[in-house]
């Protein structure tokens, strides 16, 4: 029983950073920005989270700094891709590489360590214990006692779905992606909408980074995002940006990642490392079949 609970908890915490970054990515996806910089934004967020938490002795400042750090990356993206109209793909790659180099450099300069910075002075984001839910047998250990960011993520999923599909901003956001000239001709600047989408993406990637370095573990290590931003990009494209779909894909990915580790009892580890990717491919297969049926 313990193992199942552990697997589910592992799934939730494995999915959270991917899900947050992917939700950020979905705003830019709808706005028609080909944004691949989630990886870099997340990594920058993770670094500044540790920086803020360590120097201000407060996890809240950690989150604030993470968002500021990630927003700086988003602003660079805005400056180049939206204002100066450079190629989004190239800009994204540049940002990702820049984030990796810059965080590594700053860690070495500021904390005087290489590789990983772990220190008791870093204040982690607390877990939230919900008194009533905790008493439910089995489920109690899953519903209660999760990290604060995880509850925020649930809210963000609902909010994102609401904003994108039910509000005027959401309508304009989608219009900016589908048909920017007609949006512009109706008197709403599509560039402005894109800027807002990138700012939202920056905030959410900052949260994702803060969860990685202050929630899941309490340290910063070089390249600690470890490809999660790319997975989130895949999640966005896989389900055409639908927030609920993204949540499912992220959970599936988190689950299979943990499952891969668990299966090592029965299979060679090189094989189990493939599990998340094979599962993603299978999901992609079924999704595209569904999508075809809907079209027909």
């Amino acid at each position: 029983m313990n193992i199942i609970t552990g697997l589910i908890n592992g799934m939730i915490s494995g999915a959270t950073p991917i899900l947050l970054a992917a939700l950020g990515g979905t705003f830019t996806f709808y706005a028609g920005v080909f944004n691949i910089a989630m990886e870099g934004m997340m990594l920058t967020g993770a670094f500044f989270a540790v920086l803020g938490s360590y120097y201000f002795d407060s996890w809240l400042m950690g989150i604030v700094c993470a968002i500021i750090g990630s927003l700086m990356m988003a602003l660079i993206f805005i400056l180049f891709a939206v204002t100066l109209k450079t190629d989004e793909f190239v800009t994204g790659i540049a940002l990702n590489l820049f984030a990796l180099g810059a965080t590594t450099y700053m860690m070495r300069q500021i904390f005087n360590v290489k590789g990983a910075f772990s220190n008791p002075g870093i204040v982690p984001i607390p877990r939230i214990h919900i008194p009533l839910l905790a008493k439910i047998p089995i489920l109690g250990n899953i519903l209660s006692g999760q990290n604060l960011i995880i509850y925020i993520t649930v809210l963000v999923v609902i909010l994102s779905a609401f904003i994108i599909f039910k509000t005027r901003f959401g309508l304009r956001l989608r219009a900016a992606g589908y048909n920017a000239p007609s949006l512009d001709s109706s008197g709403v600047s599509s560039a402005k909408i894109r800027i807002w989408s990138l700012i939202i993406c920056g905030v959410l990637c900052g949260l994702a980074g803060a969860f990685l370095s202050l929630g899941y573990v309490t340290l910063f290590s070089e390249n600690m995002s470890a490809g999660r931003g790319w997975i989130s990009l895949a999640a966005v494209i896989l389900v055409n940006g639908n927030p609920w779909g993204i949540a499912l894909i992220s959970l599936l990915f988190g689950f299979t990642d943990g499952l891969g580790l668990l299966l090592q009892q029965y299979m060679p580890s090189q094989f189990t490392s493939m599990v998340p990717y094979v599962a993603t491919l299978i999901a992609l297969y079924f999704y595209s079949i569904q999508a075809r049926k809907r079209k027909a």
Partner: protein
Amino acid sequence: MKKFVFVMIVVLLVASLVGCAPANQSPETEKVVYLINGALGDQSFYDSGQMGMEKIKSEYGIEIRTIETNFDAGQYEPALQAAVNYADVIFVISYGFEDQLMAFADKYPDKIFVNLDTVVQNEKKTITSVDFIEEESAYLAGVVAGLTTLETSLPGVNPGKLIGAVGGDVDPVISAFVFAYTNGAKSIDPEIQVETKYLGSWDDTAKGKQAALQLFDMGADVVFQIAAAAGIGVLQAAGERGLYAIGVDTNQNDIVPGNVVASDIKDVGKAIYEVFKTIKEGTYQPGAVLQYGLASGGVDIDMTAQVQVLPQAIQDQVLAVRQQIIDGTLKVEIYTGE
């Protein structure tokens, strides 16, 4: 203007060539390079080598330089070339580029190559290999883990006889670690089971933590991390659950105080220092395979910590086994790839 730029470039090129030339020829002060396949900052394996480099620098007043290739296969060959151009003595950790290293050693027979942690032999037999008998210290780590999981008076330890290990990836060194760790634990109680997880990564700390949490969920009370930087996630998992972990390569007992009961030390720095000493004293023999085990201090187990959780009885028992290995009365089985 164009002409001026051209002239400037030519002048710079010539100047840089001239600038390089003396470095190739006249090694007045001895220069030593530490060339590693990974990067410094793991707070264990590579950093320990760096400490050895600092030590020979201060003791012998030589120039040192560290070249990190950060697991980038494209950099291995240029890094070797740079090392050969710069230095007379090259300490190298050559996972992944053993073949290039052999080629370079054959091409530059006057340079001293010391390969650390694995055995690499070139045709001309000029590479000296430092081979750590990691089985001896991993065996002791297994003894610590075995004694800890049986000591139910320690907070959090359950009656089940399960211990865990988290490896970065499946490779001969990690397999040797796990092999000896298992043997060490079973020497305490043959019923002890060892469960191992491999991350497929040496820097994904989150995954390291997840793997350790899974092992704890399965009922393990002690997890041995053999995953470089990713293993710090293992130590934090132990802290979160109030259970126990064993660190690797350097003393990691204070990273999560009270939860890291011991560290399996691989003293790369000491090996560098001692090999360099033989070079200075003229007793150095090219092509030798040097075995660094417990007796020579190349590997060890370290239980000193700010917050000591292991009862004195366990520590004494571990130290007794350690003494037996040093005396040679206990032979630790060497991993041979099954």
